[in-house]
């Protein structure tokens, strides 16, 4: 079975993502313009205990967790669009 090209590209992006999202981010102290703006205003993000916060999986090595999060995210997106597709087809059939 031939995999779709977009899935191969997405897999490649996810596999290299910890290099940028964890290693290099820690190395240079990753912060976005929004973080700077929030700092200037003296605001703080709410503290919370989200299980998969910042693309981590509890109990898993951060690098593996980041990769696993990528696949979970892509799977969740595909599932959501599958459900949306079914719903739209159903609505259209019901309307006609």
């Amino acid at each position, binding site marked *: 079975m031939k995999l779709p090209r977009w899935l191969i590209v997405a897999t490649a*992006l*996810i596999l290299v993502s910890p290099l940028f999202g964890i290693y290099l981010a820690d190395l240079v102290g990753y912060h*976005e313009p929004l973080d700077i703006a929030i700092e*200037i205003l003296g605001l703080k993000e709410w503290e919370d205990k989200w299980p998969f916060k910042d*693309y981590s999986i509890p109990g898993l090595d951060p690098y593996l967790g980041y990769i696993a999060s990528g696949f979970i995210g892509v799977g969740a997106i595909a599932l959501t669009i599958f459900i949306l597709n079914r719903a739209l087809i159903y609505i*259209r059939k019901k309307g006609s």
Partner: protein
Amino acid sequence: MHIPDGVLSINVILSTYVALMGVTYVAFSRISKIWSSSLAGKTSSIAALTFAAQMINWPIPGGTSLHFVGGALSGIVLGPWAGFTAMLIVLLVQALIFHDGGLTALGANAINMAVVAVFSGYVLYKLLSRRSTWIAGFTSGWLSVFLAGALCGVELWLSNPISITPLVVMALWHAALGVIEGAITASAIAYVKKKAPQIIEV
């Protein structure tokens, strides 16, 4: 550019959620008329690629950092309404599963990245694409990130009107960092146009 929980005022939270519900209603009315299995496949692939590309952070030593947004690319490849749907689903997954972007800020994040970035990128590309694909792709990618970043700054300022500096910071940094978004958008569009021009909606 994902606004977290705790920085927006209740007025901004409510107004952006109301605006998002309005746009979502119109978007679903529009896409229900044009929806097909082919568009479902394209929406799925662009949403998944955008999600994966957003996981690649580009840290810039000594300065600030960024990640790809993908709003303009979604709008150009899928058209504005399916592009909005793809970006909204990416933002929902990021907020609900990974808490990247707060739940209270989901309305604002979606208005910035799924509405402003997608529609501005789509419109500008449509206006410029007859002259040059690369220039049209670059300027639409750049403008989409600049406008989304600037609007994010406006939302922060409306929530905390003590200083206009955060608005200026957001606008200026995104004007500069948008160059990378523009280059990626232009390169991706040029590649798709060469390999499979039929899948581009504009």
